[in-house]
């Protein structure tokens, strides 16, 4: 009886010990992966960048570049969040975007590239991976002018890698634009509007319904499974059309990243949706995000 009680106490003791260890490990890992407090980085022209850091501070660093131009970082949290287990992630709102107010005349592609520079210097990041979505991928590609500072690129749904010049490329662009138009007018979008009772237009809809209808159309442009429209973030107050247009106007008349990609020593990973049908040309400002 005595021995039994002793064994029971020992088992109970072990269980408590295991539980305490588990709690400690959990607390330690949570602290490690905890989101850092948001911060602001003053940059040139009196602008400030809103910066969000998360992930394993001991891991390799990736800077995440949102699209638009003129969108903001938060829609990408869902996309890259799982990397926080192993990597340090630095997200920010580009100048002129939601949380990074900046005068319109201080917004340009070059200034966006300069702010990546400021960010790496201020946070002492060293070599980084750049993860860019949509036109953020354009910035990542353009930032390769600093190869010593880039460990590699991850391009998510990048815009056109070059402005078409030869007839083959022009034909390819036309085909792509046709596909984009067809994608935006596909029946699945109207069907979804009908399912939600939002097919009517104009004043018959409440403002809430109008918002939902707008979001379904936004989803129609950005996702294939339009029935997942509720998951599509961004747009409206999360998108600065003015900043986006200003940045887009500063794009060069033509570009060609393919030569650089052919000769680069740095690895580049590209992830594309087979149904990614966003317009690609120079003058086609992205719909947010």
């Amino acid at each position, binding site marked *: 009886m005595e021995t039994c009680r002793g064994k029971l106490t020992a088992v109970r003791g072990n269980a408590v010990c295991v539980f305490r260890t588990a709690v400690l490990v959990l607390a330690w890992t949570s602290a490690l992966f905890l989101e850092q407090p948001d911060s602001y980085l003053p940059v040139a022209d009196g602008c400030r960048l809103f910066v969000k850091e998360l992930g394993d501070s001991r891991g390799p660093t990736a800077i995440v570049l949102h699209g638009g131009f003129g969108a903001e970082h938060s829609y990408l949290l869902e996309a890259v969040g799982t990397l926080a287990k192993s990597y340090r992630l630095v997200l920010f709102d580009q100048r002129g975007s939601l949380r990074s107010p900046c005068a319109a005349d201080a917004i340009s592609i070059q200034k966006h590239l300069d702010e990546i520079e400021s960010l790496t210097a201020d946070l002492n990041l060293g070599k980084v991976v750049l993860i860019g979505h949509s036109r953020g991928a354009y910035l990542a590609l353009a930032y390769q002018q600093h190869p010593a500072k880039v460990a590699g690129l991850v391009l998510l749904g990048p815009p056109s890698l070059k402005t078409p010049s030869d007839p083959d490329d022009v034909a390819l662009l036309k085909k792509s634009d046709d596909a984009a138009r067809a994608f935006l007018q596909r029946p699945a979008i109207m069907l979804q509007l009908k399912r939600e009772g939002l097919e009517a237009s104009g004043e018959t809809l409440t403002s809430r319904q109008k918002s939902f209808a707008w979001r379904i159309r936004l989803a129609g442009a950005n996702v294939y499974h339009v029935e997942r429209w509720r998951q599509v973030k961004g747009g409206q107050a999360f998108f600065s059309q003015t900043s986006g247009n200003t940045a887009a106007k500063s794009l060069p008349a033509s570009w060609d990243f393919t030569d650089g990609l052919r000769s680069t020593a740095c690895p580049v990973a590209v*992830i594309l949706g087979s149904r990614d049908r966003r317009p690609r040309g120079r003058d086609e400002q992205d719909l947010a995000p």
Partner: protein
Amino acid sequence: MNRTWLRDLPQVRLTVLKNAGHNAWIDAPKEFDQALSKAMTWLTLRATKTLTMNQTVRVDGDLWIPRLYLSMAGKHLHPCETAFHPSAARPGARLSIRPGSLNGR
């Protein structure tokens, strides 16, 4: 369009997610996570080893002057660090690390 232009670029790894749109993580969350994770593993040095100056590296049997990092997980050198030896940029190159002096090269 981009898919055509990305063909045959040696340093580019293209992953196309089936039935996914511009925000592919919404259409194909699991596949997107996997693709992103693989891409990051490929790009970064998950299991890194800092070489000291008295270590040498062989890439497919050829002596290679060590740079800072080796990808032990991917078994290939980080391509950005391969200025000294082009073959090291080739994915799948076989590496061996051994103590020794660079002077013995």
